[in-house]
């Protein structure tokens, strides 16, 4: 009898020891193939760098990070998210890059019992009426970047603007976000088919209208081409201000053509915050390129998870949510907190493309435009 008691006590201890040793499983779901793969690679690499910095442990537990590729397809992403949650049993899913993927994976992840941490996508519905206690967006709400530029143009008294975006949801959102904040005259809007690479027709039209400035949202390879063709078309005297068009993922191809172009961001490699310079140096050392805001998003996402799991573990869901919401992690952006809708309250900056002393093309902070800003949808969110 006594022996059995000792034995079962022994088994209990080993079982609970095994419980404590069970690794924290984190699924990383990004777009890692096709033309926009470079964004996903940056975010993934930023996250892996954070894991390395934490010594392979997240929240004090061994971390098992499972990286999957959504290939930019919402249906496939939903399926992979379901696999991560149901078959792999992950505690967190970090992803995605694109907003249309976010809409597809939100339900499979949260209904499956995992917590979704977005390192980049921040569509308006999740900031407003579809806000969810198990969704945390560490990046920004999509409208905020164009609003940085609209505010800058208002301050500079730029009275007329031409708008340019691809004809899909995010392009239309971006222009609407811009128009909501811009006080001057919108001379015209040009929507191009998604994936168009030659802008000769649009640039000729802009040249004919001679607006005081142009705002464009032209992500990925489209933006590389727009910027390269801008000066070739003799438009260098009209300022081209962009969101998600000139950053460290596109600058290696845009190079000199983008220098001095203005953009809006919540971060830049030379942002003077604790740990940022160290992060940039470590990223360059590990991956041979300058980190982008996507890399920063991946890094901050894992640091957030680390802080919350250290604080609350993963057993008590309410405590974990509260610890995530407290955001007690050293963000590369400095001041960082969550608004009621689990979207960030943070500063936004006007940045411009430069060639730095080491010969790298990167973005650089010009000035702070918004201080401790939250998005305009937070009022529609029922959470507190």
């Amino acid at each position, binding site marked *: 009898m006594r022996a059995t008691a000792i034995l079962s006590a022994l088994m209990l201890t080993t079982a609970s020891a095994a419980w404590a040793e069970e690794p924290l499983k984190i699924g990383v779901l990004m777009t890692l*193939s*096709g*033309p*926009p*793969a*470079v964004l996903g*690679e940056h975010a993934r690499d930023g996250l892996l760098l954070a894991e390395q910095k934490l010594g392979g442990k997240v929240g004090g537990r061994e971390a098992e990070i499972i990286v999957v590729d959504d290939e930019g397809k919402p249906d496939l992403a939903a399926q992979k998210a379901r696999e991560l949650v149901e078959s792999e049993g992950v505690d967190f899913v970090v992803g995605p890059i694109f907003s249309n993927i976010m809409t597809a994976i939100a339900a499979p992840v949260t209904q499956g019992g995992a917590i979704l941490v977005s390192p980049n996508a921040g569509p308006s519905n999740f900031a407003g009426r579809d806000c969810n206690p198990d969704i945390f967006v560490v990046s920004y709400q999509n409208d905020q970047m164009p609003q940085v530029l609209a505010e800058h143009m208002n301050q500079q008294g730029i009275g007329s603007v031409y708008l340019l975006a691809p*004809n899909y949801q995010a392009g239309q959102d971006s222009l609407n976000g811009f128009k909501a904040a811009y006080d001057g005259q919108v001379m015209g*809007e040009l*929507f*191009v*088919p998604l*994936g*168009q*690479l*030659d802008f*000769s*027709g*649009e640039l*000729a*039209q802009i*040249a*004919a209208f*001679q607006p005081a400035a142009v705002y464009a949202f032209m992500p*990925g*390879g489209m933006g*590389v*081409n727009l910027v*390269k*063709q801008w000066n*070739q*078309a*003799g438009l260098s005297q009209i300022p081209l201000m962009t969101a998600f068009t000139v950053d460290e*993922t*596109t600058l*290696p*191809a*845009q*190079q000199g053509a983008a220098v001095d172009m203005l953009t809006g961001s919540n971060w830049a490699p030379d942002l003077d915050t604790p740990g940022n310079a160290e992060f940039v140096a470590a990223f360059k050392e590990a991956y041979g390129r300058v980190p982008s805001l996507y890399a920063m998003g991946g890094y901050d996402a894992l640091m957030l998870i680390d802080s919350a799991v250290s604080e609350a573990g993963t057993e008590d869901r309410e405590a974990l949510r509260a610890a995530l919401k407290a955001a007690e992690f050293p963000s590369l952006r400095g001041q960082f907190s969550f608004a009621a809708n689990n979207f960030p309250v943070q500063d936004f900056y006007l940045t411009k493309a430069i060639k730095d002393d080491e010969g790298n093309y990167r973005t650089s902070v010009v000035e702070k435009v918004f201080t401790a800003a939250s998005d305009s949808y937070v009022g529609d969110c029922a959470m507190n």
Partner: protein
Amino acid sequence: MFDLFLLQLLNGAQFGILLFLVAAGLTLVFGIMDFINLAHGVLYMIGGYVMAMVMGTTGNFWLSLVAVLPLTLAVGLVLEVLIFRRLYDRSHLDQVLATFGLVLVLSELSRIIWGSAPLSVAMPEALSGSVPLIGPLSYPVYRLAVIGMGLGIALLLWFVIARTRVGMLLRAGAANRAMVSALGTDINRLFMLVFAAGAMLAGFAGAIVSPILSVDPGMGDSILILTFVVIVIGGVGSVKGAFCAALLVGVVDTLGRMFGPILLQSLLDPAAAAQAGRTLAPMLVYVLMAAVLFWRPTGLFGRSVAR
């Protein structure tokens, strides 16, 4: 407005010339070999990457442009010998499946080799400016050079096809393949030659656009569909048809996208016109294709189908 129209006409012509370079090889392969090659766009992409790579090592634009020719020719030969040769006798569906598979494999391979970030090729200093036209409008010198190079190649192709023995065989092959073979011409060698030359032209097109567009793993997909539109409008197998159709598609596409919304504004209210314009404009070339097929089912320069 008229100045803008002229400028857009130039833009359309430049786009058309580019389409022609890619379409010329494809229409011959399709017309003579009756072979549907979806991987033709990949050759355009390879041209861009080879250009970026050679340019990266030599730093000389013109040298790189010349080097692209034998290199893409070689790629075309290797693909023909290893893969395409085995598909000529198969059904169209098999060809579509196999070449589509090849598109996936080669795109992914180039992503592994060169990475997924777009690459850029510097423009030669002498051609990097723009020529002032009227008022604030100007036109990039490099795009004029693209038009010039494309016209030069079109002339050269015309000469080869209309005035040389190889050209004679090509025309004969397009008309009646079995007869040419029966008359003692090695049709397989002819196929190999046509295929490799087509690959070289597509590669050249990829190389000359690389200073304007970025080189990325998806660039081939974006041009392939319009190329098929061009060869269907022009008439399968006709290089002259491809030339006219490419210019037509280039101009209609550019003018439609730019002036379509403006024209619609005189008919509808501005918001509806903008919405309708951006929906209709990308469809315009397909409407054109449907119209051409309705009036001339074999394309503008296609031979009538023997019944």
